[in-house]
């Protein structure tokens, strides 16, 4: 897209946001409890889907806008600028949608894609297990044949919005005799059936964002295998590699907003600046420098993606450094609020601070990202160390 097309896209979305995003949806402090927040995220997901803004890079045939990466980035930037809330299906649309677009059958696309975008179905992700976190390929949830269909048994952990979900896309072991990465399949499982038990998992921020999900001989229809049987690892990793740049583009845009809010907070502290204020200013300026560099790297990833070039370890660098900058920003905000931490606004900031602790853990811990970067540099294998 050229500059004028991008400007037109930006203008169209800004107008749409002005007409469709109620201000009260942007501030979780005013929403009260977690159920209200979930309701907003569902409602916002429905609106974004209806406006065809939820998955702008998807083909228009499935509810998208056929936008190239640079157009998608404009949408993410404007949503961040408007402080739009998350949607319930945001992560499934980003992570599972591309897998289904690339590997799914026409029947699967027709059945699932539009309903994912408009939030008719809420999805959750079943990847991590108690003994398969960073070492995801060690997963043990098993898929076994049952007539023409299959049964799945096992336990999944850190399942975002699991207790609200209608459907789950999950990685399961379908061949116990195959090498570790070769015997894994990607399947779709209905959550509302006998054999599926969801237990909300309370996190350190006090919310039930995640669940643990138990599968006991739950049914998987033969037509709900995505791609070929035992090919799930490749599908998941290829699609994830393709989408990682865009996934973190949004978070990098949001980081800019977080830093701006902290600067505003610093400016409002009163008429008696202290030496601590210059320390805050210095930290925020440093965070802003990191944010600028992250923004440039995200643009680079989007360019490479658009050109069909390999992005290598660049997404890992973005994930690693964004997550740490995000946590440092939340640290500054908390310190700036100081005596106001007990107010409703302060309590929300404490919640965000605690929730930010997840950023260096999910989607590959910081340690995993550093390992990936080192592998990209072709450093010697750890297996040669005793």
């Amino acid at each position, binding site marked *: 897209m050229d500059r004028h097309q991008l400007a037109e896209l930006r203008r169209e979305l800004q107008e749409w946001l002005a007409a469709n995003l109620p201000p009260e949806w942007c501030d979780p402090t005013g929403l009260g409890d977690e159920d209200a927040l979930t309701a907003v995220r569902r409602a916002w997901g429905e609106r974004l889907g209806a406006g065809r803004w939820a998955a702008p890079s998807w083909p228009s045939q499935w509810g998208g806008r056929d936008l190239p990466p*640079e157009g998608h980035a404009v949408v993410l930037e404007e949503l961040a600028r408007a402080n739009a809330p998350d949607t319930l299906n945001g992560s499934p649309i980003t992570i599972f949608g591309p897998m289904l677009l690339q590997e799914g059958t026409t029947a699967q696309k027709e059945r699932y894609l539009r309903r994912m975008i408009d939030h008719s179905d809420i999805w959750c992700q079943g990847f991590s297990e108690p003994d398969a976190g960073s070492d995801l390929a060690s997963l043990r949830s098993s898929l076994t044949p049952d007539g023409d269909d299959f049964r799945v048994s096992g336990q999944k952990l850190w399942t975002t919005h699991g207790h609200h979900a209608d459907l789950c896309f999950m990685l399961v072991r379908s061949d116990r005799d195959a090498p570790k990465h070769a015997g894994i399949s990607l399947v779709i499982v209905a959550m509302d059936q006998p054999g599926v038990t969801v237990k909300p998992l309370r996190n350190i921020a006090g919310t039930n964002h995640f669940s643990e999900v138990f599968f006991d001989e739950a049914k998987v229809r033969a037509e709900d295998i995505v791609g070929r049987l035992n090919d799930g690892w490749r599908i998941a990793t290829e699609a994830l590699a393709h989408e990682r740049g865009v996934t973190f583009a949004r978070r990098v845009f949001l980081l800019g907003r977080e830093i701006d809010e902290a600067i505003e907070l610093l*400016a409002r502290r009163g008429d008696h600046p202290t030496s601590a204020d210059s320390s805050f200013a210095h930290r925020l300026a440093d965070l802003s420098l990191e944010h600028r560099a992250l923004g440039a790297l995200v643009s680079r990833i989007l360019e490479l993606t658009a050109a069909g070039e390999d992005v290598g370890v660049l997404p890992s660098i973005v994930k690693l450094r964004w997550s740490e900058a995000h946590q440092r920003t939340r640290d500054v905000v908390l310190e700036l609020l100081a005596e106001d931490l007990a107010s409703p606004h302060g309590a929300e900031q404490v919640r965000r601070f605690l929730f930010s602790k997840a950023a260096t853990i999910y989607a590959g811990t910081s340690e995993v990202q*550093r390992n990936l970067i080192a592998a990209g540099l072709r*450093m010697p294998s750890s297996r040669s160390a005793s």
Partner: protein
Amino acid sequence: MIGVGELEEARALRAGLHETLRGVATQHPFEPVLDGDGFARSVWEAIGSGGWLGVAEEDGIGAAASTLVALAHEVGAQVVPGPFSATMAFAVPLLARGGASTVDVASVVAGTTVVAAAFPARGMPHAPRWTDLEVTEAGRQLHVRGRLSAVIAACDADVVLVPFTRSDGATAIATVSSTASGVTVEPETRLDRAKPTGAVQLDVHIGPDDLLGGWDARHDELLAHWLVRHQLCVSGELVGAAAEIVARTVRYVSERRQFGVPVGSFQAVKHLVAEAHADVELARALVEECARRDDDPDDSLAAADLAACHLVCSRAARRVLDRAVQAHGGMGFTWDHGMQYWYGLALFAEHHPFPARVLHAVAWDALQARALDAAPARSEDA
């Protein structure tokens, strides 16, 4: 959005410079020069004969900022002795575009005439205060007195290029022969072994012929444009240096064995190097983005953009070097391993021509203004 192809073209040109430098010397190409005076005419002329000092003027159009920055990457990686960026991205374009001059541009491009350019004594990239020189006008003669500090290659130069502020507030550019009466040059303590600096004491009378473009020429815009490009090149040198250090560190920790295995197989070392690589890629992305924006006629780099870019690049270089020394263990602490050359480059470039603390203040002021400017919109959101 820029084409990946443009970037590839710039990188191809960089590979050409790499080959030229390889032809000049082997091993660490410039070690004898860096451990000596920091400048060698033979090396400089060899670089000049490749046409590299004139790429900003090639075909009368000149290479894009992206290309100049890509070449600067190579200069930083190799720690090329001499005022490469100051010549390629500042002195030559000014001489070529500033109007009539007594200096033969072709000989500067060829490396046979060495130019030492004076950069601003104070101010910022977009609001430089060019010199603290005292300038008095008498008829069509200027009496220029004062001292210029930290002038790269001052002791080796044939000509000193002196931008200065006229009585009407506009900026002109004088070219002064380093052997002219009233010009004395003293070497300064060398921080970057590849860029020895000197203090130039001036007490000279300058006529119209010594001013680029003649008596009435004013060069504020030309200077501002090339000051920005030169600053981008210095940032590029820092990124090139940092990337080279990461590559050298990966090689070293892959070969060096302890406990029967390469030290690079230990996760603690891997993570150290991974962080260094992250610093390089973030800085590289930012300086390349800024260079492309500078090339874009519909875009413009603000002072804060340039300040942020330089701060990110100089910090990346420092952090990479610190980690590299640690990853090299005792060897990293030896002169033989050569880290001091890149440290010198990084420590000098961090504050030249503008001190990092000034750039930090520029970045913070702009950040604060933008955040507070957007605050009413955020309040309405909430």
